[in-house]
C-alpha cells in the first residue's frame, strides 16, 4: 500500500505531470501563455521521431521476438473492438446522440502516443524493462478504431437522400494509413532498426539526452490546450459523459489485461499495451472525424480525450496499469 502511494506521489510530482498542471492552470486562469503552433508541432514530431528511433534501435539490439506479429494483431484487434464497446456503453450511459457517441468511441479505440511515451518514462523510472517493438504496436493501433467509429455512425443512418449521389465521406486508405504520425513512428522505427547501436550512438545526443525536457515542454502545451477545452466546453458536457472519460480507460485496461495474459507478455510490455488500450487519441482521430463525421461535435470528443482521459491516465492511470501488468505477469 505504502509502496503504491509512494509511486503515485512520485509520479504526480514528476516534472512532466507538473508541467501539464502548469499548462492547465495557466489556461484556466486565461493567461496568454501559449506555444506557437509550428513549435508545438515540432515538439510532437520530435517526440515521435525519438520514440520510434529508440524503439527500433532497441529491437536491433534485443532481436525480434516471435511474439511481435501476434502482438500487433492483438493491438489491431483491440483498436477495432474497443470502439464498439465504448459505443454501446455511451449509448446506454450517456445522453450523447449516436453520431457523437461513435466519434468519441473512435477516439478511445485509437491511442495517444504521448501517453505511451509518459508510460515508457514511468517504467524506466521504475526500472521495468519493455520491448522496443511496442512502438510498432502503438503505430498499428492508431487507425483501425477510425473505421469502427465510422461504421458505427453509418450503421444507424437510413439510406436517405442526402448520402445518395453525394460523395461518401470515408477518409481514404491513404489518409488513414499514411497519416503523418504513423509514417513518422514507423519510419523512425525502421531507421532505428537498420542503423542499430551505431545509429543510436550518433543520434543519442538528439533523441535521448534532451528527450525528457522536450516531453515536459510538450506536456505544458497539452495542459494549455486541455485547459482551454475544459474552460470552454466542460459545462456543456454533463456528468455522465465526463465520468465515461474516467471509467472507459479502466474498462479498456481490463480488456487489454486479458490480452496480456493470453500472450504472456513481460511486465513492461504488458503495461505499455494496457496503456495503449486505455489511452485516447488526440491527433489523428479528431482530424479523421472532421472528415468522416462532421456532424459530431469536436468540443465533446476533444475535451473528453485531452481534457479528461489524458490527465487521468497521466496522473493515475499509468501507475495503475503498470501495477495491473505486474499482477498478471
Amino acid at each position, binding site marked *: 500500500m505504502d509502496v503504491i502511494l509512494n509511486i503515485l506521489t512520485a509520479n504526480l510530482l514528476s516534472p512532466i505531470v507538473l508541467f501539464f498542471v502548469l499548462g492547465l492552470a495557466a489556461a484556466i486562469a486565461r493567461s496568454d501563455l501559449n506555444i506557437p*503552433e509550428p513549435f508545438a508541432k515540432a515538439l510532437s514530431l520530435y517526440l515521435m521521431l525519438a520514440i520510434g528511433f529508440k524503439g527500433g534501435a532497441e529491437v536491433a539490439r534485443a532481436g525480434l521476438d516471435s511474439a511481435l506479429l501476434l502482438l500487433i494483431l492483438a493491438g489491431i484487434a483491440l483498436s477495432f473492438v474497443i470502439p464498439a464497446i465504448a459505443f454501446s456503453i455511451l449509448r446506454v450511459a450517456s445522453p450523447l446522440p449516436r453520431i457523437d457517441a461513435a466519434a468519441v468511441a473512435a477516439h478511445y479505440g485509437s491511442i495517444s502516443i504521448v501517453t505511451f511515451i509518459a508510460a515508457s518514462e514511468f517504467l524506466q523510472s521504475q526500472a521495468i524493462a519493455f520491448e522496443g517493438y511496442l512502438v510498432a504496436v502503438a503505430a498499428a493501433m492508431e487507425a483501425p478504431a477510425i473505421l469502427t467509429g465510422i461504421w458505427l455512425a453509418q450503421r444507424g443512418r437510413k439510406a436517405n437522400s442526402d448520402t445518395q449521389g453525394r*460523395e461518401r465521406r470515408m477518409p481514404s486508405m491513404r489518409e488513414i494509413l499514411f497519416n503523418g504520425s504513423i509514417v513518422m513512428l514507423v519510419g523512425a522505427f525502421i531507421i532505428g532498426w537498420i542503423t542499430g547501436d551505431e545509429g543510436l550512438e550518433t543520434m543519442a545526443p538528439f533523441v535521448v539526452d534532451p528527450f525528457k525536457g522536450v516531453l515536459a515542454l510538450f506536456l505544458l502545451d497539452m495542459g494549455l*490546450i486541455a485547459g482551454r477545452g475544459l474552460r470552454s466546453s466542460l459545462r456543456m458536457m454533463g456528468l455522465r459523459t465526463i465520468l465515461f472519460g474516467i471509467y472507459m480507460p479502466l474498462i479498456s485496461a481490463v480488456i487489454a489485461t486479458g490480452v496480456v495474459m493470453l500472450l504472456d507478455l513481460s511486465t513492461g510490455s504488458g503495461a505499455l499495451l494496457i496503456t495503449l488500450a486505455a489511452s485516447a487519441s488526440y491527433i489523428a482521430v*479528431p482530424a*479523421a*472525424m*472532421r*472528415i468522416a463525421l*462532421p456532424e459530431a461535435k*469536436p468540443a465533446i470528443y476533444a475535451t473528453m480525450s485531452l481534457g479528461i482521459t489524458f490527465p487521468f491516465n497521466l496522473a493515475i492511470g499509468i501507475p495503475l496499469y503498470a501495477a495491473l501488468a505486474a499482477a498478471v505477469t
Partner: protein
Amino acid sequence: MQLHKKKRIEIIIERPILRRMTDALDTSGVHGYTILPAHGGSGQDGAWERDGLVSAAGAMVAIICILDATNLEPVLDAIYAVVERQIGIVSVSDVEVIRSDHF
C-alpha cells in the same frame, strides 16, 4: 489601366477538409486559388485558437479564388458539395483585375 470584372470567392473551412476542397476546386475549372492560414475565430460552436494545436482538427484556413463570372455557378456547386455537411463560410464578391488572362 484597363480593369476586367471578375468574381472573388472566399472560403473559410476546416484544415482537415482542405485537401478535399482543393481537389474539388481543381476539377471544377478554376484557374487558381490561394490558401491563407487562419489564427483563430469564433462561431456557433464556440471559439478556437491555432496556438498550441498539434492536430489539423481545430484549425481553419481561408481560400481566395478569383475567377470569371461565367465559371461561378459550377464552381459554387463544387464548393457546396464539399461544405454541405461541414463548417464552411463561402462568400462571393465583385472585383476587377488588371490582367484578365489568368482567370
